[in-house]
């Protein structure tokens, strides 16, 4: 009884498997050629003394490039800059994004229009956004300094001031990405069952109690996802630094990505830059793994395979 029934089913499964691989093949070919092989190449370069500007034969140097990273004070300062951006995400973007999401959630109408309007800073190119802030921060002709002047608050040079350049960039990142944070949290709020909140409201809970005791605990997985996603993106941050400060003044606003770019494309220390790149990749993969575990456990993102 069993075996004739099993047979066609196994054949069906083989057919599905074969078709599945055929459907994946072109994607795998493109991704392998354009990311996996380059990555493997970067790994080999990271173990060599590969420098374009110095015409010495390339040889294997073992972990020398990696060792150099940890004694390079520029690495540590760029790591510090990256961490400041991460702190901006966690302590500024998240609370602000949450607040805005709660405000939007209260609205009865216009939610989609408002979200789309708010998202304009996120969806325009960083080059465009960067230009807007170059204008706004301008020492002599910018509207920010004009308004500060009216209030007799002085005239900072913003992106040229070693003390203000990094806060200014963190502010631009805040402006650019808080709407995205809002969007994720708002979509999360919308997916909550309304009955829970209504029940709490009937109990006579205040708004704060509802937020603290109901929204935040229920949203925890989504908050985790939003935070990890934004931290991952912060590790890639490059564009607005390039446009607004180019890492300066000095190296005050050089984050890890920008430092790696400078090593690779300005000084052509390809071995060293590759080692830096691999190091970042390891950190990012760990974060990405955590993100995916989180989406799975919450049952929100990828569903467990049902086969």
């Amino acid at each position, binding site marked *: 009884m069993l075996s004739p029934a099993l047979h066609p089913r196994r054949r069906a499964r083989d057919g599905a498997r074969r078709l599945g691989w055929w459907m994946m093949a072109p994607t795998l070919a493109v991704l392998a050629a354009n990311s996996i092989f380059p990555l493997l190449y970067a790994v080999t370069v990271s173990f060599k003394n590969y420098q374009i500007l110095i015409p010495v034969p390339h040889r294997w140097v073992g972990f020398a490039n990696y060792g150099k990273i940890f004694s390079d004070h520029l690495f540590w300062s760029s790591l510090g800059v990256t961490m400041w951006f991460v702190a901006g995400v966690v302590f500024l973007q998240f609370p602000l994004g949450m607040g805005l999401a709660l405000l939007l959630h209260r609205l009865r109408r216009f939610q989609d229009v408002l979200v789309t309007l708010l998202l304009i800073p996120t969806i325009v190119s960083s*080059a465009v956004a960067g230009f807007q802030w170059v204008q*706004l921060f301008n020492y002599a002709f910018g*509207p920010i300094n004009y308004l500060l002047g009216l209030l007799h608050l002085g005239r900072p040079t913003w992106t040229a001031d070693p003390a203000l350049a990094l806060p200014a960039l963190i502010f631009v990142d805040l402006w650019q990405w808080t709407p995205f944070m809002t969007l994720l949290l708002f979509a999360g709020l919308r997916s909550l069952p309304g009955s829970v909140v209504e029940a709490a409201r009937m109990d006579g809970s205040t708004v704060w109690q509802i937020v603290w005791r109901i929204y935040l605990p229920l949203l925890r997985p*989504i908050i985790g996802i939003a935070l990890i996603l934004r931290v991952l993106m912060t590790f890639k941050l490059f564009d607005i630094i390039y*446009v607004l400060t180019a890492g300066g003044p000095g190296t005050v606003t050089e984050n890890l*990505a920008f430092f790696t770019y400078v090593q690779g494309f300005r000084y052509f220390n390809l071995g060293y830059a590759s080692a830096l790149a691999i190091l*970042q990749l390891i950190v*990012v993969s760990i974060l990405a793994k955590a993100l995916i575990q989180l989406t799975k456990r919450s049952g929100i993102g990828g569903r467990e395979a049902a086969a």
Partner: protein
Amino acid sequence: MRRQGIGLSDLVCGFALVVALFVFLAPVLWMLITAVKPPGEWLNEPPVFIPSELHWANFTDALFKWGGLKGLTDSLIVASLSTVLSLLLGVPAAYAIGRYQTGGDNLSFTVLSILFMPPVAVAIPMYLFWSALGLIDSYTALILQYMVFNIPFLTWVLKGFFEDIPRDMEDSAMVNGATRWRAFWEIAVPLARPAILAVSLLAFIFSWNEFFFALILTRANVTTLPFILPVLMEGHDVLWGDIAAIATLGALPVVILAFALQKYLVRGLSFGTLR
């Protein structure tokens, strides 16, 4: 059920939203104002808040004098081709992962992790790779490079969507003699159309806006809009009106698309993580 009437807290919330909206849109507004200022008002102290006339010549200068037209064309070529090609490859891949679990969890994680890869991590080998092929400053290199990020993104989003579509319809089609491929192409794909539209929009926006690889892989032959902006800003920092016009032209298609496909945008951006 919500309370009826408008209370004090509603007013406070409304006010907060208006303030937020102003803060997030003021820089955009300033760009638009600059784009229509006559040259004499670009660099003024104090800055000019309301232009004395609408100087549309900034836009013609931007398009024809400073390479804006070439920039728009190149951005359009690169963004649309990389989006279409990514769909052609990514939709079947997403279906294979979602429906057949091809390659299991490890493969889908590998594909997905490419999405989070810092571009700078592959920049050096990619630069050497495209140089070796003589494709630096070519459409091919940029299009393929963007596909590397578009494909994992749309695979991730669409995989979940295909998992959600009930299997029954495809199964019954196959009982009636349809091949697996036809079940995919004629049943699953049409059902997933809203999701496909949403991810295409986002892939297009990403490719239209991308800056880092444009900076590294192009010179003078291919000049996408994000690429020419910083070049102009460095070279001629007094051309604010013209640069603002180019920036506006670069932002406009994205914003129009976003509004036209509003519902999909909100869903598309969020259901990568929430569905």
